[in-house]
């Protein structure tokens, strides 16, 4: 098998591709065909395909909102397919990108890496031994010497063995070295949130632990289009990013996802629904719940503004403040336990900036302060009725 990487070391980066280089692949291809040398042809084809892929990706577009993407080149995809597509694009465009974790090689337990080992080879898409602390550290080491390390932790519930490496090493690598070293090209992808039957160890939302760690970024997408753009932005961000994928949405969320290489800005929240009377803030799976709750509130004549935080940390405080100054009321929701969850941080921040604009206390509708239960899940979760009730209380305060 031809070593993919030794070829691409000679390839220019996106910015350096000129017009003559755009046409040269075709010329060389024709030459190779005419030469009738099979091995040479095969090698040339490989090389030029890579160059074409790089050229195609020239001008990976960056957007603030997914609605800014005008491309009609789309395909219906669910969340895991969108993630797969993002990974495929990065592996294709960046010869130093590596994807690894438990069970990644055969396609991943959630199919996110399906087909990628066949396409890019075992040097680049591979299984690691069963050891989360090792996966985290291995990724940091790769990133510290210039590789793009995309590390997968199968369940967010199992990220804790890697906590020391993530918090004490990855987050502080640049700062403690006086910017001589960094592991910015590390991205840790992990699954996240309730799935209906996951109980204590397949349902957790650990974002708050990492949002408390300067040096990290934490991102949670709400649907396939966001997921692809945010994942590509996270991978290419020059800081270590933890990217939590809502497992409940892997199959259930579908959309017409652009096939292009596009990124959505990190640290920018999105107003997914405009409203007048109250601001509802959430992320990931909870955006759907907020939409359902707002439909119930609409019947009472309450117009809800829904904001998807997208980047949990560092979060886009300005969008939140602008909204609450307009509506005067705010509810924050997340599956993670209430105490010291993101709701606590956002409440403190918003009341500090919008105190005189508030018509009612900021309310958090979150998971209870218990471990995530099995049979009690339906009554544990912050569902649309609990949010609707909170909206009513806020509006009637």
């Amino acid at each position, binding site marked *: 098998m031809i070593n993919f990487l*030794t070829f691409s070391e000679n390839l220019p980066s996106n910015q350096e591709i000129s017009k003559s280089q755009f046409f040269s692949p075709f010329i060389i291809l024709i030459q190779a065909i005419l030469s009738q040398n099979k091995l040479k042809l095969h090698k040339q084809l490989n090389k030029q395909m890579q160059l074409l892929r790089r050229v195609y990706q020239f001008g990976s577009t960056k957007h603030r909102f997914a609605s800014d993407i005008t491309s009609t080149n789309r395909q219906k995809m669910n969340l895991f397919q969108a993630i797969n597509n993002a990974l495929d694009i990065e592996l294709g465009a960046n010869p130093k990108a590596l994807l690894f974790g438990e069970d990644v090689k055969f396609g991943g337990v959630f199919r996110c890496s399906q087909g990628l*080992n*066949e396409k890019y080879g075992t040097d680049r898409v591979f299984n*690691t031994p069963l050891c989360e602390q090792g996966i985290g*550290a291995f990724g940091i080491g*790769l990133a510290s010497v210039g590789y793009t390390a995309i590390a997968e932790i199968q369940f967010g519930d199992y990220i804790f063995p890697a906590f020391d490496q993530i918090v004490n090493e990855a987050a502080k690598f640049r700062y403690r*070295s*006086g910017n001589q070293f960094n592991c910015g090209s590390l991205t840790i992808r992990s699954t996240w949130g309730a799935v209906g039957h996951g109980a204590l160890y397949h349902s957790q939302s650990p974002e708050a632990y990492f949002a408390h760690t300067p040096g990290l970024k934490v991102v949670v997408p709400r649907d396939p289009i966001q997921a692809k753009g945010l994942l590509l932005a996270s991978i290419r961000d020059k800081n270590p990013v933890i990217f939590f994928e809502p497992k409940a949405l892997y199959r259930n969320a579908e959309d017409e996802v652009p096939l292009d290489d596009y990124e959505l800005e990190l640290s920018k929240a999105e107003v997914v629904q405009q409203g007048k009377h109250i601001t509802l803030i959430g992320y990931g799976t909870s955006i759907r719940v907020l939409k359902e709750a707002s439909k119930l509130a609409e019947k009472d004549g309450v117009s809800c503004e829904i904001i998807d935080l997208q980047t949990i940390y*560092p979060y886009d*405080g300005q969008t939140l403040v602008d909204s609450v100054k307009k509506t005067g009321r705010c509810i924050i929701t997340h599956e993670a336990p209430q105490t010291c969850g993101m709701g606590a941080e956002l409440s403190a921040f918003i009341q500090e900036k919008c105190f005189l604009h508030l018509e009612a206390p900021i309310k958090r509708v979150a998971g209870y302060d218990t471990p995530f239960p099995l049979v009690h899940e339906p009554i544990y979760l912050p569902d649309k009725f609990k949010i609707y009730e909170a909206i009513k209380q806020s509006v009637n305060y």
Partner: protein
Amino acid sequence: MKHFMRFSKISKAFKEVPSQYVYQINPIQNFEQIKQFRVIDLEGNLIAKEYNNIPKETLNQIFDLMLTIEEMDNILYMSQRQGKISFYMTSFGETATTVGTTAALQPQDFIFPQYREQGSFMWRGFTIEQIVNQCIGNHLDGGKGRQMPVHYGSKDLNIVTVSSPLTTQVPQASGAGYGFRVNGENKIAATWFGEGAASEGDFHSAMNFAQTLKCQTLFLCRNNHYAISTPTDDQFKGDTIAGKAPAYGMRTLKIDGNDLLAVYNGVKYAREEIIKNKEPFFIEFITYRIGDHSTSDHSVLYRSQEEIDSWKSGNNPINRLGLFLKKQGLRQFNDEHDNQIRKDVKNRVIAALKHGSEQQSPSIHDLFTDVYDEVLPHLQDQYTQLREHLTKYKDQYPINKFKGGL
């Protein structure tokens, strides 16, 4: 035209292999203890003649550096007692391991240190001034005054910055070594750790990953007999740390760490093997920590002065190398000359301390830089708040200590 690699489902059907089975319960415990590789004996006599292959100039440079480090460590230890720096860690008794190893590596090899490898830093060119500035934490420190003393790092010298959590660097070196292999680079990732650090979980994950994923990683264990006050008997059972490595499928050497020629030759061999086979290698150096763990330690509380002296006079890397050089006629020994080296080092350290203490600390803004690649908005806000506070309470803070002041 897709570039396919056939995804072969590797299925292993069950096959009976009679030789695999025994019919009596005989648990295995003691393996044969791995012996230490040695070239010169305790009196510097050459035993393994085929390893007498290090150029005379290199040997003398190594010896000079070992003297330099010993003298520098002395002065900096004392300067901590005098309050000039807040903390220090000496490397008495262990410089053959660090200097010898780094001399046998290539400059492009990445080193992931623990904290007692000033020998590695200085062999590659880290200066006394750089060491002192980091210990003081002034604006000349490459680390921008962010960490406690001895947490050196150097991008130019390919040595990753030291961090306090133990053993975290070891699996990172597995990752780096993997990158070097898949990119076909003539580079290895060499990582240092003590025998105590090898008890951490990160050690196990590093070893397992490195061998399983075939990483160009060199594991370097300094077994200096103590982890602060904990002797090796309280740290592990089995055949020291080297005894664990073959269990990971890894090639392993145990080396007499106070024998400079053995260190140099062993590391040179290991590096060649790593590049040739594209597999990791494990080396344990048996040495002894002659000094205290750090300036916060008082080691006679847990070990006898006799024990320390027995190593200092009986198995000392500087003495052994010096005797070897003398007996082989590779160095003209001259008390005056060696005293001059020590005197020069002493003066240089003292001058660096004086100059370093007169420098300002990094700027106030540097509290907020390098958390991310840019100073993000929320940090910009916090910086502004701090400036406002410092302006208002100017007299309560040592503002002029920071470069650029307010």
